[in-house]
């Protein structure tokens, strides 16, 4: 029996947006339940068994997180999620070392919470270098090598991109950072539990982790902060001095237990799950290619997590396609789906033409995706792409051999 059936109602669409969030694994919920009920103590209470019990849950979970990334449990602190972890890592390090180093290196395809944090630090007087990416979405290590100087305090490069799923060469980046004495922070929200990560082998100094991307609860995340050599951070939330003083506030025990359990399950099942998802992804791509021409995968297919596809369906606008495939929940890089009316900046950074960015869908597969769901999704996509192409003037022109770029379009 599919564990997801316990959560998903039959009248709900097929969920194919696992990079946005994941359903909680029922095993995670089970582990959390006692901490919502009879084990309700404050993990910081030292004088009675309620507190000790809660503390035990929180510390076991901390060890589970640490183990998944090859860290020591003392190096893991809890936060509210990857956004907070990214803010704390970058602002914390920048602020603490600002008298010595004032330069930050990141990439143009980072998540908004990293880019916006960097913009904020620019206003505070820091210099930020935004590295471009290559056509496949990966950074050029030579460009990175040149960008890092003895003034660079931190290099923040995401492990796996949230839109296109590509995996950056973490070990090589770590080596470059270590050689230049800059800290290496990686936003690993999309990577943890999906690909093997080792903070020692990869020379990672700071790593952001999210609970809800790994079948754990929302509202919890973690930040790995290296102890040897020690990385120091200026705290953003002040108070009782919990979490080594980096992040005050009473820990949400059930959520901590949840993210820990999620890490443990991911660690056990990662290899088998990666193989299963790769098969499903190949099946989907093969199915689409068999029935549709002019579809393009955005981002490197080889250096990519198994559960992600980002595809441009030429001459079909993304939002209209999503309106058609009502039985599927996916997301689009089209402008029409964003409040800003700008197409995906990640796809633009790869050099994907604006018109192709408008036609892209992000399809995320995960732990509860079945072969049958993939087949249904392929059939639905093929049907609606074909239908929409029949009503697309661009498809008509392309079939007639007219080069769409040769037409002088009036911008509006």
């Amino acid at each position, binding site marked *: 029996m599919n564990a997801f059936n316990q959560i998903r109602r039959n009248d709900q669409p097929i969920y194919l947006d696992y990079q946005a969030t994941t359903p909680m694994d029922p095993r995670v919920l089970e582990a959390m339940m006692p901490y919502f009920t009879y084990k309700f103590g404050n993990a910081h209470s030292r004088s009675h068994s309620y507190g000790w019990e809660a503390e035990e849950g929180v510390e076991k979970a901390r060890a589970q997180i640490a183990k998944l990334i090859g860290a020591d449990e003392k190096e893991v602190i809890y936060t509210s999620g990857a956004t907070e972890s990214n803010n704390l890592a970058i602002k914390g390090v920048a602020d603490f070392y600002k008298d010595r180093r004032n330069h930050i290196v990141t990439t143009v395809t980072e998540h908004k919470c990293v880019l916006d944090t960097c913009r904020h630090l620019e206003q505070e007087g820091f210099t930020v270098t935004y590295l471009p990416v290559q056509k496949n979405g990966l950074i050029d290590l030579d460009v990175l090598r040149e960008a890092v100087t003895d003034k660079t305090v931190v290099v923040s490069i995401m492990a796996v991109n949230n839109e296109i799923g590509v995996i950056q060469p973490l070990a090589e980046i770590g080596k470059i950072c270590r050689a230049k004495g800059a800290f290496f922070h990686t936003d690993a929200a999309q990577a943890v539990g999906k690909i093997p990560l080792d903070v020692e082998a990869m020379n990672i100094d700071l790593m952001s982790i999210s609970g809800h991307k790994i079948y754990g609860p929302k509202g919890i995340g973690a930040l790995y902060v290296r102890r040897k050599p020690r990385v120091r951070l200026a705290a953003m939330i002040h108070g009782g001095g919990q979490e080594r003083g980096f992040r005050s506030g009473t820990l949400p025990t059930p959520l901590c237990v949840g993210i820990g359990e999620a890490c443990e399950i991911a660690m056990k099942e990662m290899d088998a799950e990666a193989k299963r998802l790769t098969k499903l992804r190949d099946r989907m791509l093969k199915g689409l290619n068999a029935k549709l021409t002019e579809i393009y995968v955005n981002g490197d297919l080889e250096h990519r997590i198994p559960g992600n596809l980002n595809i441009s369906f030429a*001459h*079909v*606008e993304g*939002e*209209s396609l999503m*309106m*058609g495939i009502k039985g599927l929940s996916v997301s689009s890089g*089209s*402008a*029409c789906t964003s*409040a800003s*009316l700008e*197409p995906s900046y990640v796809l633009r950074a790869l050099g994907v*033409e*604006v*018109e192709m960015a*408008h036609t892209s869908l992000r399809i995320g597969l995960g732990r509860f995706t079945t072969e049958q769901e993939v087949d249904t999704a392929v059939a639905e996509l093929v049907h609606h792409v074909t239908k929409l192409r*029949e*009503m*697309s*003037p*661009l*498809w*008509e022109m392309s079939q007639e051999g007219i080069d*769409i770029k040769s*037409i002088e*379009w*009036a*911008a*509006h």
Partner: protein
Amino acid sequence: MAYSEKLIDHYENPRNIGSLDKNSEDVGTGLVGAPACGDVMKLQIKVGPDGLIEDAKFKTFGCGSAIASSSLVTEWVKGKTIDEAETIKNTDIAKHLALPPVKIHCSVLAEDAIKAAIADYRAKLSVKKDESKEAAE
């Protein structure tokens, strides 16, 4: 985004999809928008000898609102004179489909498409008149 029933109906059952012969004298073609902006509309009208629009066809690349707006205007222009068709306002389209504010530009594009098709038809007509005048002289 929550769309109105009318909009969804036009998206799911678009009226008058297709193409007319763009080289025909009694057909006016409007092609507006830009692929880079995410919407392109092609709207064509066929004008009968009585001066009434007897057929209209469209093809649209764009979001659901753009498809619905162009489908709707093909329905509206049929049976009208070109002068009447020219008075269709984007605000009428937006109101009829209950377009959300962020989608108003789709109705503007549909209005532009009608105007462009009419302008194309008129241009063909004046060439024809010139030719027949020359022939008479």
